[in-house]
């Protein structure tokens, strides 16, 4: 069986690389998965390395402390040294995901549409949200390998700049092109804890978007922080014996895309 190779970027303040690697490895149990955490400077030194991978991951974190704007400085560095290799990577049948700060980096790289700015109340927020995937007909029925089999999902967010900014015209384009991955909705958890469902004030409630025919996904919520059942705020009320949390499916989908 061919090895599925995953590259998870690190360095300069990215910080979710270890648990993200854990999620991919767990999702790929018995599927011959290799997940490498690679420092950006090591990739810059050997840029050709990127061509050996199937999945590129920009994990969450605080690259450059959000200085000059979240994701900007890391994206600048990436563009400055690796734009050719990135282009090559995206042109192949590969998958790419950016989570939280990774999403912010990817919008600054210009490989995902529009951008992210400060939460509407100006504060960093860590809590759970409910999401509906773009595969729901009212978002245009987007299909993406990342989202297979997921209609609704609850995940945690933790960010200060998660407000997705987009004007109406571009929003319509996104919808038309099946590029909306996730929207914030009032679901199980927002109902349970009686919370606002779109806490950062994202335009059109957008929490994640797609590009490159659904192969590239950027999302503010953290699926790796929902890979275990006990991570959910609902777990104490229903301690089922299962270990897996809903977030794991996203990683499984990616692995399965290549395992076929």
């Amino acid at each position, binding site marked *: 069986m061919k090895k599925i190779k995953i590259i998870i970027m690190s360095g300069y303040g990215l*910080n*979710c690389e270890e*648990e993200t690697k854990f999620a991919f490895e767990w999702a790929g149990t018995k599927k011959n998965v290799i997940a490498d955490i690679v420092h950006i400077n090591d990739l810059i030194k050997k840029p050709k390395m990127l061509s050996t991978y199937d999945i590129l991951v920009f994990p969450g974190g605080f690259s450059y402390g959000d*200085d000059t704007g979240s994701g900007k400085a890391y994206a600048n560095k990436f563009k400055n040294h690796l734009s050719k290799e990135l282009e090559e990577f995206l042109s192949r049948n590969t998958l790419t995901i950016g989570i939280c700060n990774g999403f912010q980096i990817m919008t600054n790289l210009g490989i995902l549409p529009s951008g992210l700015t400060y939460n509407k109340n100006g504060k960093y927020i860590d809590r759970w949200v409910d999401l509906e995937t773009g595969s729901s007909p009212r978002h245009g029925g987007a299909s993406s390998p990342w989202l297979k089999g997921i209609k609704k999902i609850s995940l945690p967010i933790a960010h200060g700049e998660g407000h997705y900014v987009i004007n109406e015209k571009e929003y319509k384009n996104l919808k038309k092109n099946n590029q909306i991955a996730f929207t914030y909705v009032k679901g199980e958890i927002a109902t349970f804890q009686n919370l606002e469902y779109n806490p950062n004030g994202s335009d059109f409630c957008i929490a994640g978007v797609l590009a490159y025919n659904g192969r590239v996904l950027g999302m503010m919520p*953290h699926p790796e922080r929902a890979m275990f059942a006990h991570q959910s705020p609902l777990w*104490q009320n229903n301690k089922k014996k299962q270990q897996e949390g809903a977030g794991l499916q996203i990683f499984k989908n990616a692995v399965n895309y290549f395992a076929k």
Partner: protein
Amino acid sequence: MISRIYVTPKGKASFINSYLISHKLGDEKISKIAEALTNPILEDFSINKFLQVKGFTYAVEIGFKPGVTDNVGHTTKETITDLLHLKNNSDLAVYTSKIFLIYDHISKDKVKEIAFSLHNPLIERASVASFKEIKKKNGFSLKVPEVILEKTIPVIKVSLSKMTDEELEKIGKMGIMDNNGMRRGPLALDLSSMKVIKEHFIKLKREPTDIEIESLAQTWSEHCKHTIFANPIDDIKDGLYKTYIKGATNLIRKNKNKKDFCVSVFNDNSGGIIFDQDYLITHKVETHNSPSALDPFGGAITGIVGVNRDTIGFGLGAKPVANVYGFCFGNPEDTRPLFRDKDLKNKMLLPKRIMEGVIKGINVGGNCSGIPTLSGFVHYDDRYRGKPLVFAGTVGIIPRKINDKLSHIKKAQVGDYVVVVGGRVGADGIHGATFSSVAMDSNSPATAVQIGDPITQKKLSDALIKEARDMNLYNSITDNGAGGISCSVAEMAKEVCLPDGRQGGVKVVLEKVPLKYPGLRPWEIWISESQERMTLAVPKGKWKVFHKLMESRGVEAVMIGKFTNSGKAIVKWKGKTIMDVDMEFLHNGLPKHQLYTSPVFHKYTESTPPNPPLIIKGRVKGGVYTEILEKLLGTKNISGFSFISEQYDHEVQGSSVLKPLSGAGRINTDAQVFRPILNSNKGVVLASSVYPSYGDISTYHMAACAIDTAIRNIISVGGTLSELAILDNFCWCSSYDQTRLRELVDAVKACYDYAVGYGTPFISGKDSMFNDFKGYDEKGNPTAISIPPTLLISAISVMPNISKTVSPEFKKSGDIIYLLGETYDELGGGEYFKMLSVDGASVPKVNLKKNLKIYKIAERLISDELIRSAISVTSGGLGIALAKACIGGMLGCNVSISNVCQSLALADVKLFSESQGRILVSVSPKNTKQFEKIIKDIPYTKLGRTTQDGKVIVVDEGKKIIETTVKKLHGIYHSFSNKMS
């Protein structure tokens, strides 16, 4: 050349980011830089002129004062260097600022007021310009705030031998006098210490240099040597620390014998205990009170990022896996102005401002570092108005063996390079250690304030803990905290591995230390506490590999000297020896003082048992307590603080199990559980406790209750008593006062009694003994505010299986509610009496034997999965515990408290007494039989059941005394927090 780039958000901008760049690049390159700094979808840029933003009336620019850490500036410089592929960036400097735009038509004075609220004049500068002025000048000025230091003589000799006692005392208090006649700021050395230094150098037949005196002052400071805990006090010859704190731990470890789980206690940067057969878990809690009073944000962020380094500096380097915090603030509604100086120019920050800054500091420090900020508390008392208490702690994890060597053991070898890694040195953080050892007044040095740079530290931490450590590239590592390299290097030199018991030594070439800007004097470089630095002992043969690795991770590493076997600390500056001090004198020369205490007079003592008469006219209308309960629930020390918990990332690393907020009603949990190793079922449990107001009656019982509560909080969620360790943080006041010292002795004795009693060893601790403010009120009258003696007990425990974690909120309607433990008439010092402004006498006392039994039973109940919820009964007593459990589950309850107290107590006692050793639990009806069988030997009361209708009903002696709804209680519980967010 100097250029200014303005980056303006699209639409009606409320602020503009400004980058003032000093450079030798052309216009074209500046344009390229501006493009890189702008996200074209969200922002526009302009160079050397304001964009056409319309309609604003004033612009307020807030930037840093010269020399203050400018993190955004650093990042920008890095981005530019990378973008333009610059080989040498020494001509490049970036100064960032934020320009706030005001659209209202208000007076310039009002704008100045706004400007003041936006910055801290100690570290930041503000300038205000009207729309007209901006238009005329095309923006703000192009003057850069660079540091220009006067040329001074690098090293001066201090003629101690001829000095009178009076002069010696002055040096100790106000510092060495520079050639310009100015004193350098406190050394915090008393006369007897100064005399010992004088005698020492007379014997050597020479005068000391300034750097030698400064170095001794750092090493001997209260902050570093903990003299109050180390010195003999009354008839306690070995001092408090050795006798009672370390004494307790030693005895407990001996008693535990083979079950001893302590591995490295008191002798490293953190304390380390066994997690499982492969890992150790470490913990350390620090205080950062004085810096936080001056600059709340900077003080708090350097507090948390600093204590992270106590983790990275444990053994060969532990990985930070959880941050904890604790805040004691003045009342945020208090707006009385206070001043540090008689001329009323140096204004103290108001409690609300301090609170906001401190909360944000912990936020940025933890969030940016990718360490979950999991556990914490906030406490309010007017007496924290003069000095807030800011506790910051970090838990770490480290494999027990690294490269086949025990990871907690480290020693520099003779010949190893002294290597400093991380941030550069500036004038920030000079006299931090000595400054925190004195009371705060107008002489408090502003250079003691620092700003943290969590990303520089994150890079350093990752490069060390995730790479260099496992590559076996260094022999020893320690943090640069108080006293900077003067302390870290000397500490490591002391431990240099020598065969015949000789003292190690060190030789440092000080001009090799990388600086933020030129002109610093050697003594300043030596003691500066500039942040984000670690000191390592790197073997000569590994230096090249180490250096290369650090370089590839964007981390600066510099070799500044060598460890030796000379028994001397030698510092060189441009070829000359400027410091040559015996290690023995440096570390052990500090003279011992006999300390004495005198009895404390309290209005009430243990021998005046009754609480003051509770029958206050009109207090309880018709014997109905609904309003009282609701009011108490709304007090700041009891209500929720989700506004803090929610802005701290507590889920990073994917480890959280029991989070800071729990249940449908999001109540703050008293203990938190996380899983540091994702493929192990074992969990780590954290909790803490403070009861400052109990200390007004008895500091002995204050300490006992803090220990009992911290332990109980852990037990209530599923922690294990036999694998539970504690940490002490004493924050005292006026420690020259003998009655305050007596209170200290009382508290420390309780620490011994209860730690030994519960078998819970102290593994680390810290003290901060002078939390006093001396200043002036708005009329210029002298004012002194001291904190109440405060003891924070932090607890850490390992639980075998995280799936058994129990959260505090009620889960299902129809569950049976029980109170484990006994309730006594112990309202003294509690939140209920505080609310009524009633003095109390009978402070809660801890019945060790009884509680021990209860906790062991509780452990079993959780292990057998017989309880659905458990909440530790703490501040506000049973009434508040019931309310919180209901709010958390958004369920009602119907309970009777008739049998809660054995004596004929008032309902006040049953509801609000803060008796220790109690846990409120709910049990599924199908489990009650088995449950009651297990608890038959401990005191308990069956109270009633949870209900679906949301009505909260409490009955006493057949009478409904509380009737309210969970919805209403939920609103009250969150109202303060909602106001703050």
